[in-house]
């Protein structure tokens, strides 16, 4: 399990894999320019999707990785399913934590909603399960023709379930819709997208106004294929209630706040799915979701709390599946309005040293979390800098640094944190405050329910705050949030940081991009704008009758490889 992730841009002149583990190194580029990836799904049998999830004790599951052997099959598309699947009447029931407000991907970026519409609407390109790669799906391949032109070649012979053809025209319609969508504004600044050109029936070219490499990440996050006629006819809101796509399932019934039923699309282009009916049940209470799983009312429980692990591991009928997550818990220092002491970076480093992240991982998260490694990016993400190491737990050093900065007697620090918004957020807030107290800082706790938290955030009166941000695994959507004047900036990292990140966003060359992001990560480490805490793993409860479930870093449920006994 050396490689944790890869950055795989099929169709580019190079493909690159980065060895994982502790001292990940960039390997030399492999694959020649002529390697035209096919990723057709048929025949090549990508080993990825089928990897069975590992049932674990407290130990994290290593992501069931897609094939990184360098074969030309970079795709996630499973082998074409046999027609005999049509005979099956199998059912799968999934327990969700919330009822979607809409199933129109243009209107939302919520992973929990996508976990439903992803079976109905398919993406042109998608993030791999590990989050570090983008693979083709409905687009057979994609390629930067130049800095500002992205060419997509489409799979042929696919139609939407209402009969509309999937072609370059529909791709143009879809990309236009996503690029203009409010929900995606943070991924694609308004001046970036120019137009999509229909080259021929199955080729589309996206033209940008300026070089913007994260466009791929934007497509991988949004970028579902929409049926232009139907969509225009019913409008975006009605589409969200009755979506139509090219996917293996169609929406059959939606009882609000209760359940959503999907039926198999018998004419699916990649063969009929072995499961005839998928039911999503809305069970917001974590305890209740776990209980429903144990009694067999549901087969798959999404995003369970750590407290479920013991129960799941002791069970004969269900497994716990964990997957490295991307919800990053950090205490963001407000150096603009916060106490004077925070302006001194020695103080901020001292606070980073004051918290025993490993103890938190082992204690509060029962091992199902990873400490942040002195930087924003998670280990499995493309922008991770392997040369930076975690701030160790060192109370003496922390005290020494505080003394050096002139705060030997501590100072008052108000810490605001969310309560009840994320699993374990309250416990985490309490324990972090306890740790900070131990180096002599006088912590004033301000735990807030999320509604109030958000109100204050928007008023700009939040101060130093701890919360868990979940961002798409494209580095720019992460680093870009901490540049000067951006939404999550609580500390000025300086002109150089902003310049580096902006520059990186303009490079379609991944080597160059990565080098720039590594420099930015170093700046963030040396002048930490936050107390880097932990990244909880995602925990799923999976009935033993479910086969081929693959957790994804983006927390989206993909049923393409799932079957039930």
């Amino acid at each position: 399990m050396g490689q944790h992730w890869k950055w795989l841009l099929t169709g580019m002149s190079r493909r690159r894999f980065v060895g994982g583990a502790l001292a990940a190194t960039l390997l030399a580029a492999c694959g020649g320019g002529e390697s035209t990836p096919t990723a057709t799904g048929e025949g090549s049998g990508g080993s990825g999707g089928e990897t069975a999830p590992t049932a674990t004790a407290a130990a994290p599951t290593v992501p069931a990785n897609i094939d990184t052997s360098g074969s030309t099959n970079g795709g996630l598309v499973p082998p074409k399913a046999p027609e005999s699947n049509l005979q099956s009447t199998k059912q799968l029931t999934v327990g969700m934590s919330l009822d979607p407000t809409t199933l129109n991907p243009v209107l939302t970026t919520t992973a929990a909603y996508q976990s439903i519409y992803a079976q109905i609407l398919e993406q042109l390109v998608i993030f791999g399960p590990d989050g570090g790669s983008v693979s083709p799906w409905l687009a057979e391949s994609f390629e930067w023709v130049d800095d500002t032109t992205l060419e997509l070649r489409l799979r042929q012979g696919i139609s939407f379930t209402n009969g509309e053809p999937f072609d370059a025209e529909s791709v143009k319609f879809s990309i236009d819709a996503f690029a203009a969508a409010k929900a995606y504004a943070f991924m694609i600044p308004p001046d970036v997208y120019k137009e999509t050109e229909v080259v021929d029936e199955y080729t589309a070219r996206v033209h940008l106004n300026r070089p913007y490499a994260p466009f791929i990440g934007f497509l991988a996050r949004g970028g579902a294929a929409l049926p232009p006629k139907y969509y225009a006819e019913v409008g975006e809101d009605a589409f969200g209630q009755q979506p139509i796509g090219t996917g293996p399932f169609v929406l059959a019934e939606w009882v609000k706040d209760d359940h959503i039923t999907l039926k198999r699309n018998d004419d699916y282009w990649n063969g009929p799915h072995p499961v005839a009916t998928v039911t999503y049940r809305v069970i917001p209470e974590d305890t209740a979701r776990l209980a429903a799983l144990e009694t067999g009312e549901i087969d798959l429980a999404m995003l369970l709390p750590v407290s479920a692990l013991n129960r799941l591991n002791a069970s004969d009928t269900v497994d716990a599946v964990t997957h490295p997550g991307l919800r990053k818990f950090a205490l963001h220092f407000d150096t603009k309005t916060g106490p004077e002491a925070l302006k001194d970076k020695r103080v901020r480093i001292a606070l980073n040293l004051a918290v025993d992240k490993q103890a938190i991982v082992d204690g509060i998260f029962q091992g199902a979390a990873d400490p942040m490694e002195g930087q924003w990016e998670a280990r499995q993400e493309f922008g991770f800098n392997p040369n930076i190491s975690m701030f160790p737990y060192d109370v003496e050093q922390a005290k020494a640094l505080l003394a050096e900065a002139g705060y030997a007697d501590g100072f008052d620090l108000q810490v605001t944190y969310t309560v009840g918004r994320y699993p374990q957020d309250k416990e985490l807030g309490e324990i972090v405050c306890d740790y900070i107290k131990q180096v002599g800082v006088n912590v004033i706790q301000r735990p807030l329910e999320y509604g109030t938290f958000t109100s204050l955030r928007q008023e700009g009166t939040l101060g130093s705050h701890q919360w868990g941000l979940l961002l798409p695994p494209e580095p720019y959507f992460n680093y870009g949030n901490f540049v000067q004047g951006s939404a999550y900036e609580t500390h000025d990292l300086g002109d150089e940081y902003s310049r580096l990140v902006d520059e990186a966003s303009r490079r379609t060359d991944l080597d160059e991009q990565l080098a720039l992001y590594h420099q930015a990560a170093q700046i963030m480490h040396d002048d930490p704008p936050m107390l880097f805490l932990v990244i909880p793993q995602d925990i799923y409860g999976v009935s033993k009758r479910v086969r081929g479930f693959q957790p994804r870093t983006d927390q989206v449920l993909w049923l393409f490889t799932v079957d039930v006994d």
Partner: protein
Amino acid sequence: MSALSESLRAGREPAVQSVWARRFGVFWRSWETRISTLLLLVMIGVALVPTSVWPDTAFDSNLTLRHREPGLLMGTTDYLFGADALGRDVFFRILMGTKLTLLIAGLATLFATIIGSAAGLCAAYFRGWVDMVVSRLVDIMLAFPILLLVLALVAALGQSVSSVIIVLALSGWAGYARVIRSATLSLVEREFVEAARCTGARSGHILLRHLLPNVASPILVLSTLNLASFILTESSVSFLGLGPQPPAVTWGALIGDGRNYMYDAWWATLFPGLAIILTVLAFNLVGDAMRDAFDPHTRQ
């Protein structure tokens, strides 16, 4: 509402000093009331203990003791009720939480009583538009689903101990107003009020000196029952995540914290739950006994 009508009846009784002994006799006659009274006195005693007296194990997290089993099960007295998710002593956290739990319910009841009694007295005494406005407001308040109102108001005012108190008081005064109004209505026509009016007493004087003492007993009964219902409402609010937040501790918040661990560490929810149930039960029993005591029809 049987409680209300019965206390209404009690309210008609003129205040006579000599009846107090009889009332106490009625009140104290059953063992349930005696136990409840004792329990409540102990609770109040615990609530009066300064927070600093409780051992550090009630405050400081210690991850190595996470979900330690109750000493009760192991025959030791340390961590009698076990430890919570952060390794804190549940027993002492319950004791510590008594203060805030009772304080919130108590102050909210006090404010609700003051607002509600004043509104009820004025409505019945002045009649006319005052009565009209108060009665409509009471109708409105009693029609609201109280929990929703409380949740929305707490969300609006921000989560803090004071906002929970204010919100509970705002939501709870109407019940008093209605009862006190009808109790007072039957009094204002009586001779002693007429007499006071004729001697030229000012309204304030009549309200405070003549009317209030005569509705004191339903007020007392209602307040006791109200304490119980406020403890329950506060615990629901805390359970739903909108109650007072750390480092503040209430029983409801303890249950809210522990509910995700009900399988692994049932003690973190069971014991705070018992604390709520027993206290509410005790308040209800004492309230009932008081009502019986104030009811002239009750035989000793």
